[in-house]
């Protein structure tokens, strides 16, 4: 058996994958451990990579250019994002947590301003333009465009709440519901497809790691897990019965 770093990684990957899959049977210690490891590792990784790839070069690189040497020139204005960042961390302090509101206000204002124009341009103006009928195309194209136009109008009418959905408005909004249903159906279909693709990816790796090259890691870990879970399950059932007897 080859005890390389890669091999340890493979065994750990198989153990964590099977631990997550074990939730399909029910909540158990393997699943809980894998879940906690995932949360911890993700948070740690994101923190480290964000600090070293963004905060260190892009912020400290501008405040201490000769020390950080990230290719930026000294820029005093970057003291403001540094302060806003510190304010945000002060949320942890009871006395100074109010300062974090300044940072949040900046983020909300900046994001709203940035989003306002781009959303108006890409999601409103261009989308309205593209839903216009273009008769310089073949008959199938024209029919498709008419269907899209009916879908857009009826969908919008469905979300128009200033008038009761009765009579003509009611009928149009009902058509809108059918279009929305089709959209939800398509979304559900694509969601299933995506999840199955991910399952295939995990299974493919588990099959790959079942080989002799990887010291049969998948079958060994799978069998071990099944044995441990069976023992754990029997013990849990016994404990539950004892608790019930004690209660009585």
């Amino acid at each position: 058996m080859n005890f390389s770093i890669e091999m340890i990684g493979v065994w750990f990957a198989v153990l964590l994958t099977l631990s997550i899959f074990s939730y399909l049977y029910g909540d158990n210690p393997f699943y809980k451990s894998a879940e906690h490891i995932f949360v911890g590792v993700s948070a740690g990784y994101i923190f480290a990579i964000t600090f070293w790839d963004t905060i260190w070069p892009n912020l400290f690189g501008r405040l201490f250019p000769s020390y950080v040497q990230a290719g930026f020139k000294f820029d005093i204005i970057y003291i403001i994002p540094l302060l806003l960042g510190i304010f945000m961390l002060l949320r942890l302090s009871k006395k100074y947590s109010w300062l974090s509101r300044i940072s949040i206000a900046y983020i909300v204002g900046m994001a709203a301003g940035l989003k306002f124009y781009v959303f108006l341009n890409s999601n409103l103006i261009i989308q309205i333009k593209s839903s216009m009928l273009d008769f310089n195309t073949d008959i199938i194209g024209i029919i498709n465009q008419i269907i899209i136009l009916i879908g857009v109008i009826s969908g919008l009418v469905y979300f128009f709440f200033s008038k009761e959905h009765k009579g003509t408005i009611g009928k149009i909004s009902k058509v809108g519901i059918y279009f929305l249903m089709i959209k939800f159906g398509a979304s559900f279909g694509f969601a299933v497809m995506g999840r199955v693709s991910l399952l295939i990816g995990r299974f493919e790796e588990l099959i790959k790691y079942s080989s002799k090259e990887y010291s049969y890691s998948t079958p060994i870990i799978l069998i071990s897990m099944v044995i441990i879970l069976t023992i754990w399950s029997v013990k849990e059932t016994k404990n539950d019965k004892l608790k019930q007897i004690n209660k009585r």
Partner: protein
Amino acid sequence: MFNIKNIFIKLGQLDRRLIYLLVSLSVLIPLLNPNLLQLPTKTTKNTQIVFDSLNDLKENDKVLLSFEYGASTKPEIHPMSIAILNHLFSKGIKVYIVSLWPEGVMMAADAINEIVDSNLFKVEYGIDYINLGYKQGGPVVIRGIATNIGSVFTQDVHLTLLDEIPMMNNIKDVRDFDFVFDLSAGFPGNAEWVQYACDEYKIPLSSGCTSIMVTDAIPYVESGQLKGIIAGMPGAAEYENLVYDYLNNLEYNKFMNKNVDIKPGKATSRMSAQSITHLLMVLFIIFGNISYYLTRKKNN
């Protein structure tokens, strides 16, 4: 008739763990025996548009490739990355990689290593491709790339200053690229590239994304804001086939090494498992609905 009704009602009360087992088997069996069922994949219009748009690019054109996916969505997006890189390198196109997801750096490195290991192309870092690494900030970073790339990126992933890399000469903002391609699994993703960069500066943009994102991205495709879309694993399989046929029919060119086997991609081999599982899901939905209808009728 009475018995059939009872069978359907009992089917609706099946233990969910049995359903998980059936789904697992429907994935496992085709993966263990790929020759069991081989269903043909037909290229859809949107995948063809992506292929044609990238195929129209010329030698030394510059493509910005954005990696916005991680380990969780790797099975869907990674085959697209490989197929796209194969296509671009076969045409001598310069590739500029950025990552807007923390794991994107690893995914990009993985994809590039796979291409280099295949020995199919004569590619060299800093000449044919460059990896600018990861920056946190999502839409703000995209806006930075759109307006002034130097305000966000000054070093590549190996901490070499961009001023010292010849590929980066004359690259100031998104307008210096001939095409932007986004490999996306969520936020930030193709919608942000459309909104914050490519619509305003009129740069052709295309995307390969997870299946779950497709319905949200389709309006951009219909309006031409996205030049086609590679939709999930089936899209990846379609693109792989297009690139595989293209490379096999390609006469030897200066960008490729001689006498190297061109292998079909991974997504293609996964499609039979996908199709069988979908078939099973459809059956579950039909039986589930019949069972629900009969149970409700019986209770009433």
